């Protein structure tokens, strides 16, 4: 019974299926709203879903120089890691699995999905992919520093005297003391996290790695058909995961008691966050250069997060 | 006056370190290593020294009586020093042989020019 429940968790509800559906929903909303912002009619909300299924029906070509196993395995690895992350993120009152120090596990699982993209792109043997993976990696290094500081800040704020890296404890603390976003010392960290999300997902000003106009989609250049579809799905899943992580870290703490309702509110908050930190920024900015991106994250965003960490460390 | 030994050995060690750090001739660097070794050896021997002591040799009569009337220096540091000297000689031999090989290959023993591995 326990195993059946776990299988349900992993495959359906907080795991693979839910993440896929919610991610595709967010991606669709993102595209629709950005069209509206540009005074266009825009694609239907289901457009990412159509894209995904269309790609499933196309040929998957493995280039001659590519290592077949790595080339086709990479998207699947990325998909698995992303499906697992959602199990660790509590949806208000509901958590599928809770381990100790799962914040670090989440951090590394997110990294794995990036690594899957990089290794897959690298194995395709294209020079454009070479440039793309370099940029993707530098982007990862850029947002990792602020992201790490944010996680440490939250852990310190919640843990107090003893250390807590656990999502469960963060939820419990928020239930007792109100959402972390309403602690004024946490506001810089929340802002920094909002800036980390678009880089993690790879939307407009921070999509240097997949710049389709300069370097032909970077790491994805040689991917076609089903493998590409899985990568596109991964990007959509990252949207729900990152916004969901923000929700759990900074906006947790209340629950209606009914799981279904909680999930609806969760997805609604995620949608608002997507519009706030991805769609708007996407609509109003142009792509950065990679050096600028690195400098921006290691000075401005890391500075915001560090300010929060110092405030929290001073006991505020 | 054992303090003189200490000071002398410290001076030797510092001198050796100075040589290793500043002299560009590789043979001088090896000599510097040797000087450090001598300083350390001297330090060890001095630790075992007791003023007025003799060699730690018992005679059969002492052992039979069960008491020793002799006052002797600590033998252990001397054993250590012997080992250390042997090791030091090995270091020097090996370093000098390497210097010879380096000279054959690089045609110089100036430290500023023996730097193909850097960065």
């Amino acid at each position, binding site marked *: 019974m326990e195993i059946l429940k776990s299988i349900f968790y992993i495959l359906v509800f907080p795991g693979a299926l839910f993440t896929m559906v919610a991610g595709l929903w967010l991606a669709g909303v993102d595209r629709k709203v950005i069209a509206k912002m540009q005074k266009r009619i825009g694609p239907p909300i289901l457009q990412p879903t159509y894209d995904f299924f269309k790609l499933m029906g196309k040929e998957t*070509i493995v280039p*001659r120089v590519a290592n077949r196993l790595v080339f086709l395995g990479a998207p699947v690895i990325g998909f698995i890691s992303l499906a697992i992350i959602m199990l660790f993120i509590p949806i208000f009152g509901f958590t599928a699995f809770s381990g*100790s120090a799962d914040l670090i596990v989440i*951090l590394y699982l997110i990294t794995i999905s990036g690594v899957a993209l990089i290794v897959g792109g690298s194995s395709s043997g294209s020079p454009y992919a070479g440039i793309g993976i370099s940029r993707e990696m530098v982007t990862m290094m850029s947002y990792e520093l602020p992201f790490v500081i944010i996680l440490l800040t939250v852990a310190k704020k919640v843990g107090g005297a003893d250390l807590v890296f656990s999502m469960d404890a963060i939820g419990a603390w928020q239930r007792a003391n109100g959402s972390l976003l309403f602690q004024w010392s946490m506001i810089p960290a929340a802002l920094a996290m909002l800036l980390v999300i678009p880089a993690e997902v790879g939307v407009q000003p921070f999509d240097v790695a997949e710049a389709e106009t300069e370097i032909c989609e970077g790491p994805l250049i040689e991917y076609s058909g089903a493998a590409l579809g899985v990568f596109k799905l991964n990007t959509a899943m990252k949207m729900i995961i990152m916004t969901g992580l923000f929700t759990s870290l900074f906006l947790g703490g209340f629950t209606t008691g009914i799981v279904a309702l909680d999930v609806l509110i969760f997805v609604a908050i995620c949608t608002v966050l997507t519009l706030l930190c991805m769609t708007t920024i996407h609509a109003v900015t142009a792509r950065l250069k990679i050096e600028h991106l690195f400098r921006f994250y290691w000075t401005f965003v890391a500075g915001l997060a560090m300010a929060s960490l110092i405030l929290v460390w001073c006991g505020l | 006056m054992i303090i003189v030994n200490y000071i002398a050995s410290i001076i030797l060690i510092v001198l050796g370190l100075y040589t290793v750090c*500043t002299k560009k001739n590789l043979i001088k660097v090896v000599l510097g290593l040797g000087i450090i070794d001598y300083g350390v050896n001297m330090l060890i021997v001095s630790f075992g020294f007791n003023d007025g002591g003799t060699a730690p040799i018992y005679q059969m009569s002492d052992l039979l009586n069960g008491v020793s009337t002799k006052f002797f220096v600590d033998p252990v540091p001397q054993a250590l020093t012997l080992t250390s000297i042997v090791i030091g000689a090995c270091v020097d031999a090996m370093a000098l042989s390497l210097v010879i090989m380096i000279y054959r290959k690089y045609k110089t023993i100036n430290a500023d020019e023996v730097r193909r591995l850097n960065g």
Partner: protein
Amino acid sequence: MMQHFPVLAVMLLFLSAFIVEIFGAKSKAVAQGIAMIAATVSAGLIYALIKPVMIDGQIISYWMGNWAPVEEYAIGIGYEVDALSLFFALLVVTTFWLSGLYSIGYMNKDHHLGHYYTLYLMLSGSVLGLVMTGDIFNLFVMVEIMTFASVALTAFRNFSEGALEGAFKYLVIGSMGSSFTLTGIALLYAECHTLNMAQIASILAGGLSPTAIAAFGLIIAGFGVKSYMVPFHTPAADAYTVAPTSISMIFSGMVNKAGVYGMIRMIYIVFRAMDKGTVQQMLAIFGAVTMFLGVTMALAQHEFKRLLAFHSISQIGYVITAVSLGSALGLTGGLFHAMNHTLFKGLLFLTAGAVLKQVGTTNLDKLGGLSKRMPHTTICFLVGAGAISGLPPFNGFASKWIIYQAIYTKAVESGKFVYVLCTICALVVSVMTLASFIKVTQAVFFGQLRKEHENVTEAPFSMRLPMYIMALLCTASGVFYDFVNKYLLHPAANAALNISKYIDAMMGPGYAANARVSDMSVEPVAFSYWNPIIWLVLFGVLFIGAALVILGGRNERGQILSSSDPSQAKYDTFFSGEKEMYSQVGGSDLFWGFKSNWKGYYKFMEAIHSGIVNDYASMAVVGTAVICLCMFLFMR
């Protein structure tokens, strides 16, 4: 019977070193045979000790020539194997056995193999002796033998570029380190009048006098040289690069572990200084600087083995930081990471060796596209790279996961902000490690195959077997971390924190109690980052994921297509319509976007790593001075 095993294992290696020199000079096979038999028997003897020491908790002590302590004063040289020693001994025997296996295929084109195996056995024996001895002067002698053998092996391929130079620098810095250690030991002898570590520990339990503090500083600096902590790291990069790869693996797998072992033994057992704030902070800072400097230097390298060398330095930084915390969690994490480092860095060096052997170069600018020619090596490399970057489910993740927690717990407990910086440093360095391995992956294994490497073949099986074993161990110790913790890490950490048993085993029961040695009670560090059920169901998700990809192939023509026919343009890589042959771009300088932001830093670093032996010596002297000064100024 059991108490003879440690000394037999060491002596067998030394003895066979001479036998190889006598009988193996003429024939390659004889030399290999003798060396492998000795290594296997020695490894077997050490493995036989797992049950009594790790599981039953015995401590094996052995007095050379049966010179047991007289009137509670240790006279002879004692060998003593507690769980900490055995933990490192296991790493050592595993490393040299696999290295010996690898050497069969790797060294077969070299001449004078008799000498090679002599030195190899000397090195193995000395490190094995170092981790199992109970006598501090014996420790020094073993350190010296280790240095000689390493230097000679570094220069073994003396025809190759830089081998002599690397060996010379290694010798200079290494013997300076040995001199520091010897001075420290001399001071310690002046203070305690004994050379037995157990007895010194019980004498120093009352508190450290200035002499003992000076000795402590010098010995830590000495072992810092052996573990290539930051100001002493310079010869390591050179030596690892130019040594034969089987020896590079030994260096990173056991020689710098010997330095780490020495540090742990000194800090935790001989001086009992792990609860002193100064020592903790100083070493944590040294460790953090080490990991950061190592990884940033690695990002700038264009040479495969040199890059791995800098990563070795960086990973040792993790170990030193974790060990310096003085908590059971930190020690567990540090020991675990030391073990994992042996496994994954050994694996990575072996893949580098396979590339060097099969292709003839390890220059990242001249390689590319080997994954089609060497698929097994590529997979092994990816496992190693994943492990060193700390990606789950490999072992690097498990140990780094403990280390982060340990450092941050320490930060929260002590309220010192410096530990927070260390935590951030550790986490960010992990990503940079990943970045530099992405660079290697792109530059060596993926990308376009070069014309001149068309005929490259996969490495022979005798070279692949150690790689498979290590890749398997990397994965297994990451998945079954609980098992590793229970049977290896917990006993070792326990042995380091509870020393009265160690002293009693050597000096007779009740000795420690008389000396009022304080023990720390250790709870077993329980850790779980996810439960096994997830592992079970993971395969379900894997299946679904694979099914998703296959879904497109349900019809005849929408399937996964691949072809190796060069006339079919469909399978070319897309290069704006150009022919594939024009699309060759090197991957060795992948991170200019990162490096252009760090121009000043890299300029400074290049000035420091000048390659001049005097500069390196000065850095070592300054490092030692800083360590000793820190201890004197702040230690209460």
